[in-house]
C-alpha cells in the first residue's frame, strides 16, 4: 500500500508536524472538557458554538484576515469573539425562559452558518486570491497549519487546561448539582460562562484540524466512551484523554494512509472507539447479569 510508505516517510512528518502538534493539543483540551460537556448535557451548545465559528471565519475573511503571520492571531481573536458572542446569546435567550435552550441553539447555529456562507461568498468574489476554502473550514485541513498557529494553539491549551484545573472544584460541583451549588458558595453563572469560554477557545483551535462540523465530535466522543468504561471521576478524565489522543493520532495515520480528509478520519476512529466501549459494556453486563439486579 503506497500510503503506508508515506506514513513512515520523514518528509511527510516534516510537512505535517505543525498540524499533528495542533491536533494533539486539540485532543488534550477537548477530551478534558468533554467530560463536563457530556455530564452537563451541553453537547448541543458545543454544536452551536462550533457552527458559530463558521460565521466568525466569514467575518475574518471579509476583514481580509488570513492565518498567515500576525493575521493568525487576529483571525483567531475574531472567530473566538464571534463564538463567545453566539454562546452568550444562546445563554441569554435560554435564561429568559421564554425560549428553550435547544431552540436558541438551533436559531444561532443556522444564523451563523448563513452569515458565514454569505460573507465567505462575498470575500471570495471580491478577491483575486481565494481565502480559506469552504471545505477546509467545514472539515479541517491538517496540512495548512503553520507554526504561528501551533504557537497560538499551545498558548490556548495552557490557558484552557490551567483554568479548568484552577476551577476544577466549583466546576465539578456546578456540573453535579446546579440546584444546590449556590447554597455552598459556588457561583453557577460564572461556572457556566467559564465553561462556555473554554469551549469557544477549544473549538476554534480544533477547527483548524477537524473543521467546524466535526469539532464538537471531540467534545463528546472521548467522555461518552470513557463513561461507558468507568464510574470514577478522575479515571473517566484519564480514559477520555487516552481515547482522545489515541483517536486523533490513529485518525491522522488513517488520513495519511488512505489520503482521506483529516477531520472525518479522526471522527470515524473516535466513533469506532465509542462503539467498542458500548460493546464492552454489553459484554460485561451479559457476563454478570447479577450485577444489574443488585439491590441499591
Amino acid at each position, binding site marked *: 500500500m503506497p500510503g503506508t510508505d508515506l506514513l513512515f516517510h520523514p518528509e511527510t512528518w516534516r510537512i505535517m508536524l505543525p498540524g499533528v502538534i495542533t491536533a494533539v493539543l486539540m485532543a488534550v483540551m477537548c477530551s478534558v472538557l468533554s467530560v463536563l460537556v457530556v*455530564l*452537563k448535557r451541553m453537547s448541543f451548545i458545543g454544536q452551536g458554538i462550533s457552527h458559530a465559528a463558521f460565521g466568525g471565519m466569514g467575518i475574518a475573511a471579509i476583514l481580509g484576515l488570513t492565518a498567515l503571520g500576525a493575521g493568525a492571531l487576529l483571525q483567531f481573536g475574531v472567530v473566538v469573539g464571534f463564538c463567545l458572542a453566539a454562546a452568550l446569546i444562546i445563554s441569554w435567550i435560554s435564561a429568559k*425562559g421564554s425560549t428553550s435552550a435547544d431552540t436558541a441553539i438551533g436559531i444561532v447555529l443556522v444564523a451563523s452558518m448563513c452569515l458565514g456562507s454569505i460573507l465567505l461568498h462575498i470575500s471570495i468574489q471580491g478577491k483575486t486570491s481565494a481565502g480559506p476554502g469552504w471545505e477546509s473550514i467545514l472539515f479541517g485541513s491538517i496540512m495548512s497549519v503553520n507554526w504561528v498557529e501551533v504557537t497560538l494553539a499551545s498558548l490556548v491549551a495552557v490557558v484552557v487546561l490551567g483554568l479548568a*484545573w*484552577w*476551577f*476544577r*472544584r466549583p466546576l*465539578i*460541583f456546578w*456540573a*453535579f*448539582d*446546579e*440546584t*444546590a451549588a*449556590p*447554597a*455552598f*458558595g459556588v457561583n453557577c453563572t460564572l461556572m457556566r460562562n467559564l465553561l462556555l469560554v473554554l469551549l469557544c477557545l477549544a473549538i476554534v483551535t480544533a477547527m483548524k484540524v477537524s473543521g467546524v462540523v466535526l469539532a464538537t465530535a471531540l467534545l463528546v466522543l472521548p467522555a461518552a466512551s470513557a*463513561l461507558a468504561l*468507568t*464510574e*470514577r*471521576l478522575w*479515571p*473517566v478524565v484519564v480514559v477520555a484523554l487516552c481515547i482522545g489522543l489515541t483517536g486523533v493520532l490513529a485518525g491522522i495515520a488513517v488520513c495519511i494512509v488512505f489520503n482521506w480528509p483529516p477531520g472525518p478520519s479522526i471522527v470515524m476512529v473516535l466513533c469506532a472507539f465509542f462503539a467498542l466501549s458500548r460493546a464492552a459494556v454489553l459484554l460485561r453486563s451479559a457476563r454478570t447479569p447479577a450485577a444489574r439486579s443488585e439491590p*441499591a
Partner: protein
Amino acid sequence: MPPPAHDQSSDPAVQYRGVTYRYPSGGMGDAAPRPAVEDITFNVRAGECLGILGPNGGGKSTLVKLTLGLLEGAAGDIRVFGRSPAHARKEGFVGYVPQRLGAELAFPVSVRQVVEMAAMRGLAAWKAMPRDRSDLVDHAIELVGMSELADRPIGKLSGGQLQRVMIARALAASPRLLLLDEPTVGIDVAGQQRFTELLRRVQRELGLTVMIVSHDIRAIAGSCDRVACLSRTLHFHDAPQGLTPAVLAEVFRHDVSGIFGDVHVDAHAAATCTDPSHVHGPLTLPSGPVGMTVSAAMRTGPAQPGGSDARD
C-alpha cells in the same frame, strides 16, 4: 466533628420581620404577580427545630431562597445569626439539603466525593484537602450511617440513602443551621421514620438549629419542636401539639382550593386524623397506605367529622 459554637444568647438563629417578597414581573410568567410571601414574621430559636408546613405554591421555596440569601430585594428584615442571609451563607452558617435532588445521578462520583464537594469550599486551588476537613467529611458520612457505602457511586443509591448523603454534604460545610427543603419526597414510610430519627440524632449531637420546609405533615410532625404554617402568609406558629386537623383546616381552607387535586384518603387514616382525641403530644399521624398531607387533613377537617369525604 466538634459541635459548632452554640448560640447561648437569646438572639434567634433566624429572624423574619414583616418580610414580603414579590418575584420581578415576568420572572414567574405572571404579568403582575402577587407576593410569593407576604408580611412574614417569625423566629427560629438557636438549637430548636422549626417545621414550616404549607401547600405547593404557598411560598415555601421562596422562603428557602430568602433564608439562603439567593433572592434579594425583599421588603422587611431577615437576619440569620444576626447577619444578612447572603452574608450568613458566605460564612458557611447554613447547610442546605435541597428539595428534589437536582443532581446529575449519572455523574461518576462516589458518596465520599459528593460530601467532599461541600468541605472543599474556599480551599485554594493548589491545595490538597487538609486533614481536618477530611476528618470532617468522614464524620459527616459516619453520622448519617453511610460509612460502609462511602465508595459507592452516587447513581447506585436508593432514595433514602441519597437523602442521607445530601444531609452529610450539608453537615460537611460545618453549618450552624440546617435547612431542609421537602426532605421526605420520594421516600417510603419506613424511610421517613428513619429520617426523623437521623435528624433528631444529628441535631442533638451537633447542637444544630434546624428548619424543615415541607408540604408533607409527616416530614415535620415527628421532627420539629414547633410548626409554622405558610401559605403566602404565615398562619400559625406553635408547638406541633396544637397543629390539629381543625387548625390545618382553618388556616388552609381558602388557600388550598385549586392547589390540590382530589386527594384519596384512607378512611381509617382520615378518621384517626380528624378525631382530636388521637392527637397526643407531638402530632403523629397514622402511617397508613396513603401519604397523609396537609391537603388530606384539610379535606377531612372538622366540617366532616369521621372523614365522610374520605374515599378509597
